[in-house]
Structure formats: C-alpha cells, structure tokens
C-alpha cells in the first residue's frame, strides 16, 4: 500500500504540491487528473521515490519511500527514455540488468501482443511503437505499483486502444495497482476504478468511478468539470 501523509513539495520557492494525504490500495486502476501544472507528475515522482517531500511522509508498505525501496514500484515517465541505438531486444536485456523484477518473458509477450518486433531499432520506430515499447518495458517488471505519466498522450487512437488492452491483459487486478495521469479522462474512464483530482497543487477529490455515476448521475468528465466550477464560484 502507498500512503501519503500531509505531503508537500516545493521546487525552489514554487509550490508544486500542498498537503496531500492519500492512501492508494493494491489491486486498483487509478486515474490522476488535473490541469497542466497541477502537480500530477510531481505526485507520481514522489510515489516512485524520484523526489522526496519537503514535509510530510510518503510510505510504501509502512516504510518511507526512497530511490531504493522503490523496487516494487515501476515508474514510466512521459518522455522517451530509450537509447535510440538499441533494438527492442537489447533494451529488454538492459532493463533485465537494471531491475531485479524485470521479467523478459513477460516483456516479450507484451511486445508480441502489441505487434512490436524485437529486432526493430528504437530510433527507427514510429512514435506509436515507441509508446508500445515503453508500456512493454514498464509492465515487464513484476511490480506492485505501476505509475504511468500520461501513457496515452500524443498517440493515435489505435495505439491508445492497444495500450489500454495491454494494461488490462498484463496487470493482475487482484494484486497490482496502476496509477496513471491523463488528460483523456473521457476515453480512459472505463479502465478506472478510482479517480484522484488535483487542482492548484491540492487534492480536491478522490472517488470511485461507479460512485460518481451512481451518486451524481454523470460521467467522470462532467463530474470533474462541475468540481472545477464549484471551486471557482466559491471565490477561490
């Protein structure tokens, strides 16, 4: 379980996250939404152990998250992360050498499922195929938590569909948790159990998707829009 208690983060004097308290259980698909600059990437990096909070604590399984404890947590950045001269096969070998939990058989299975050839050179792949490879190396790790920064952004519908299917197919919904930041809430909603909403570097909501539809009678996107409207009419 990942637990954040009153976590705040600043970059220099600029506030990136303020007073976040949040428990993310195992076995869920969780969407992280909010405007640009609301702190989504910072939150993911804090959970991955790539950043440390200025105040508050970030715990995994009761222990403080550091770069080394984060072996159970697989983080996928928004940017391209590859050595362009590698083939997909070589990239998998590199990951195997870096991460004890990397399972090359699973990674190859994912690549096959997504129709990516192992012998292609990364630099020769289309943007869509690089997106597919990124998902394959990330889910190729046998982690408890997968933290995905914008896994769908800038990709065409076919690639987005493949990545969604890969997420369903290659994560164990009883045990593993996926947390993904996204701007495509409408499209991603059916994949999600829960949604965390950030606004102005604070968390303004954490709700189950079924609850949103049941209680408010609207989909997650309209619910989010109304949350943002309420916030501004209160003179925020």
């Amino acid at each position: 379980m990942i637990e954040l208690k009153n976590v705040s983060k600043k970059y220099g004097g600029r506030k990136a996250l303020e007073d976040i308290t949040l428990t993310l259980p195992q076995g869920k698909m969780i969407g992280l939404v909010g405007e640009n600059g609301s702190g989504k990437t910072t939150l993911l990096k804090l959970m991955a152990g790539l950043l440390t909070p200025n105040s508050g604590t970030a715990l995994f399984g009761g222990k403080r998250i550091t770069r080394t404890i984060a072996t159970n947590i697989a983080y996928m950045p928004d940017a391209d992360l590859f050595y362009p001269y590698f083939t997909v096969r070589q990239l998998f070998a590199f990951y195997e050498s870096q991460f004890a939990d990397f399972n090359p058989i699973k990674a190859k299975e994912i690549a096959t499922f997504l129709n990516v050839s192992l012998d292609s050179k990364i630099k020769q792949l289309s943007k869509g195929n690089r997106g597919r490879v990124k998902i394959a190396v990330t889910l190729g790790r046998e982690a408890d938590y997968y933290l995905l920064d914008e896994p769908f952004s800038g990709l065409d519908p076919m690639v987005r569909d493949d990545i969604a299917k890969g997420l369903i197919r290659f994560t164990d919904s009883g045990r593993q948790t996926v947390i993904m930041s996204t701007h495509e809430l409408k499209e991603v909603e059916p994949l999600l159990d829960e949604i965390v909403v950030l606004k102005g570097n604070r968390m303004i909501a954490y709700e189950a998707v079924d609850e949103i539809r049941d209680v408010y009678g609207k989909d997650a996107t309209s619910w989010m829009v109304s949350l943002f409207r309420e916030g501004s009419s209160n003179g925020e």
Partner: protein
Amino acid sequence: MGIDFLPDKPIYQQLIDRITGDIIRGTLKPGEKLLSVREYAIEAGVNANTMQRVYKELEQMEITETRRGQGSFVTEDEAKIARLRDEMKEQLVLSFIQSVEELGFTTSEMIQHLQKRGGKND
C-alpha cells in the same frame, strides 16, 4: 476504446444490460460459456475489477453459473431466462409509459396507435 458507454449509468450496470440483452436476443444461448473475465474486459475496454463485478452480479441474479475451473456459463434453466425476458419487457413498457405521460398522451391513445400501425420498424 472498446464499447461506448452512456454517461449517466455505472459502467458495470451497462455491461450487465449488455450481457442480459445478448441472452434475451439469443446471441448467447442457454448453457453457453461466457468469455473469461479478462477476455471480456479486454474486448469491452474496461478494467478487470469491473468485469469481475459484472460476472458476480449475473451469478447472483442466477442468470449465469460458475463451474469451478471451467468458467461462467449461461443458465440452462429456461424458466429463469423467461423471467429475465419478462423483467426486461416490464422495464421497456415502464419507460415507454413514462415518456408517453411526459408528453401528455394517454395510454389508451397509444395502445390504439400501436395496434393500428403494428410492429413495423420503419
């Protein structure tokens, strides 16, 4: 991705409607095996927890049964499927009557019109 869902109803509920619809239409036959939870989740583009809930509720409604180690199957009990059809009919009629009343028509007026035009869908 996958199926398009309506905005005002939980996704698991829409998937239950979809599967019961397939059973009533006969696209899914009594005794037929359903896709596995994960296969159906991938096809529908929903997460596996949602699909798990759908299968659990269908089983509680006694429309499907789980055979250990084999998966989920549509019930072979025709009486249960007949009951499901009746419930669906009632639901349809209920929402029809609601919209008819909203527009100020009377039910007898509508019944007369239905009888006159028959069931032609054009």
